[in-house]
């Protein structure tokens, strides 16, 4: 890893003034604090400087400066990430992309849109709407989160069950690599020869380069949408309904679940009257008659699996209210406790009841409350661990529970993260899911993109400094493993 000091960061900042103009370089202590964390607020580091470029070329010029001075850098969009992916390093540079927020071109005939990374997710669908098109990935934070961040995290959202993730909807990206070179990855036409580098960049959490432009695929808006909320006496029975829906051969656009605590939180923000242990939101979309036929089947399944009440959205406003309740749940939990942690584990859908029981046991053991709001269709859990940061030791307790929850997910054959990313938060949980050799292979690919180690260091892959010695994870150079050279 590169060695940097504050002087180097300030040297980069000083030279950057000539590139972006003095107004777009931040070195003042108070202003720098704005950038000390992202959505994961329990990790904070004030960066050496913040630079706000206005073009791809300026981003490249700044990265070249960082490369020259061996100063680490991290790209930042809206800073809404939940795993600390945009957490700065103390002597590093934050490259803020908030000025790159233009929708550059809508190509209706080919159903695609070219945007800069600072454009918010929701705006893409807004600009596409007049043409009957929309952008499918819809993370809950879509009003604020940006496309650059979506690419970095390979964001999903409620509807990725049917429509896939960001990686399934990006055609090309302009990427500034760690040495400041600019490359175009992907292709406007299908079947580009060569390696799928775009597929590696998407979801790489800012560790292999900075995306400065992207060409996104748009979809025609579905002809018909039906949404219901089914009230179940328990999360187990709601989970049974999810399995039954899937077994029926229906692929809903979204299947979301909220437990009582999450519902109580949502009630503080939205006019819902749900009074139940588990609310299951199911949305179907597509050709009208297909949707109607499948919706009848889904409604019957919910009732058969024990739903006391099934409420169907009668119009777009009612649908919006349901989704507001769901999407506001994270923030609304803040009304129930002074602080909370959001988790993001994934499990095989069929293990839902066991894992929810496991989470309950962990919460009881720690004496903390855990609200569950999650993408039930694809087994992506978002337990929210509530705590009081004024009580000494409670944050540490909450963090420990949050980690044990994701590790429980791995024990059940799942993943430590479904959409929030590893970032800084889960970097030390990576060895729970991957062997030393798995991590070595990841590290080699990272090195191919960023041999000096300047691009968002300390994220995604564990290091001895952050996590202690990780058994089996060593950094042998390929030349060494090839028997062509030895370590001194």
């Amino acid at each position, binding site marked *: 890893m590169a060695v940097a000091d504050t002087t180097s960061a300030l040297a980069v900042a000083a030279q950057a003034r000539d590139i972006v103009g003095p107004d777009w370089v931040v070195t003042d202590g108070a202003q720098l604090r704005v950038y000390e964390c992202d959505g994961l607020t329990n990790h904070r580091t004030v960066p050496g400087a913040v630079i706000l470029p206005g073009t791809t070329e300026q981003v490249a010029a700044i990265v070249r400066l960082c490369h020259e001075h061996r100063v680490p850098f991290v790209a930042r969009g809206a800073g809404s990430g939940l795993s600390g992916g945009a957490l700065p390093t103390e002597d590093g540079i934050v490259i803020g992309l908030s000025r790159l927020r233009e929708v550059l071109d809508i190509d209706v005939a*080919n159903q695609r849109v070219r945007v800069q990374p600072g454009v918010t997710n929701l705006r893409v669908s807004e600009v596409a709407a007049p043409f009957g098109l929309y952008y499918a990935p819809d993370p809950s934070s879509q009003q604020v989160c940006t496309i650059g961040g979506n690419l970095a995290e390979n964001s999903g959202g409620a509807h990725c069950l049917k429509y896939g993730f960001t990686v399934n909807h990006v055609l090309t990206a302009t990427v500034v690599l760690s040495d400041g070179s600019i490359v175009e990855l992907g292709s406007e036409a299908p*079947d580009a020869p060569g390696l799928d580098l775009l597929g590696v960049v998407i979801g790489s959490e800012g560790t292999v380069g900075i995306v400065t432009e992207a060409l996104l695929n748009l979809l025609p808006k579905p002809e018909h949408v039906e949404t219901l909320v089914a009230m179940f006496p328990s999360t187990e029975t709601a989970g049974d309904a999810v399995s039954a829906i899937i077994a029926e*051969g229906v692929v809903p656009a979204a299947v979301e679940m909220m437990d009582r605590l999450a519902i109580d939180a949502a009630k503080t923000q939205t006019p819902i009257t749900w009074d139940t242990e588990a609310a299951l939101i199911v949305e179907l979309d597509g050709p009208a008659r297909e949707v109607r036929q499948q919706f009848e089947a889904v409604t019957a399944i919910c009732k058969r699996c024990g739903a006391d009440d099934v409420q169907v959205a009668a119009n777009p406003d009612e649908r919006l209210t349901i989704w507001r309740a769901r999407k506001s749940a994270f923030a609304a939990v803040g009304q129930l406790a002074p602080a909370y942690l959001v988790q993001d584990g994934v499990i095989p859908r069929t293990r839902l009841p066991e894992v929810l029981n496991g989470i309950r046991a962990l919460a009881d053991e720690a004496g903390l409350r855990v609200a569950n709001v999650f993408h039930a269709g694809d087994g992506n859990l978002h337990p929210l661990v509530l705590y009081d940061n004024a009580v000494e030791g409670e944050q540490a307790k909450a963090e420990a529970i949050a980690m044990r929850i994701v590790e429980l997910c791995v024990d059940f054959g799942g993943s430590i993260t479904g959409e929030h990313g590893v970032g800084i938060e889960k970097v030390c949980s990576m060895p729970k899911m991957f062997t030393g050799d798995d991590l070595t292979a990841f590290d080699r690919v990272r090195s191919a993109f960023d041999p000096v180690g300047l691009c968002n260091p300390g994220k995604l892959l564990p290091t001895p400094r952050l996590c202690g010695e990780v058994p089996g994870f060593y950094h042998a150079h390929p030349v060494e493993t090839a028997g062509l050279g030895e370590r001194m």
Partner: protein
Amino acid sequence: MADLAGILGADRLTDEHGTPVLTPRDAAEVSTLLEAATKTGLALVVRGGGTKTSWRPPPVRCDAILSTAALAGIVDRQAGDMTLVAQAGTPLAALQADVTGDATHRQRLMLDGVGGDAATLGGILATRAAGPRRHRYGTPRDIVIGARYVTGDGLVAKTGGTVVKNVAGYDLAKLLIGSQGSLAVITEVSLKLHPVPDVARTVVLQTTDANAVAAFVAAVRTAPITATVFDVRWPEGIVAIRIESTPDGAAAQIDLLHDLAALEELAPEAGDALLEEHLGFPFNGSGAVLGVGVRPEHLATLLTVVAATGGQFVGRATLVAGDIVLPDLDPERIARVVEAVRDLGGNVQARRGDEAHLLAAPTPAPGVATVEAAIKLQLDPAGVLV
């Protein structure tokens, strides 16, 4: 030359027309072989069913073939989670038969078996092969959720997992898919499954007017129709659409299609047969074969190019991606297609014919070539996998 028989034992070594073939039985043996090859400087070509070996340029050197034939079998299938894990050397057809054979769960594996019954899962991934169902279900990149692999120097590793949603670590499956076995040997793959629909119906439009085809395709593209297959066949002038849905859903969509153009509905068996025919199309004849892709707006132009060069095209109508089969190996003819597609900003990859490989050889941009070379050096430092 290394003692090939000594690496995995004489029983793993066979001879095929003078070329040694090594057949490791598991990932550990693949690792042993690649470690030895790295130390001794062997050049190995990875082979699954060997159905698409012409999809890559002939290797400049090949000391032995690494066959994945013994890496076969289903590791795990979770019907409730709609996931499947299988060894890379398993023939895709066998996997599909296993999944669809389970009548209780009515599921299917939506990779297209490009290359016929011998085509293996690993081979489909390595060549990024996709056929007609790609219209709805995408390519291997959209269906694979994880993989185990052995790097060129013998590191046994995994990427992704067995759950359908997962962003932990880099998605190196994306990197391995389409890498033609040049970075690592894929040993095991995790896949998503999809439900079997209630009904499947196929309608066909016949017209030899390329502009009429393009207009019809554009109209369907914006209509409330979710086809599984949407193929064009040229110069025969056939546009085929397969609708898979609920009975009502299919009926409504077929009605709507009839409103857009004068179509003929095929009997179910004829619809299935058409699908198979399109799947096998890149293997027709003996002339050069080019895989092509252009932007949707260029469909009519591409069809005109196909007709003008004496070729035949079968591909996906809206993407636009498919294969052009030429009547011979005439370099001039190949060059005309390559040039025309590139003029449209499209992509060409040779599927058959040395001359086609020569003429369609890509020239990656300098920055991209640098990263590709760095990745190759990191994953296969001695250049074992050729």
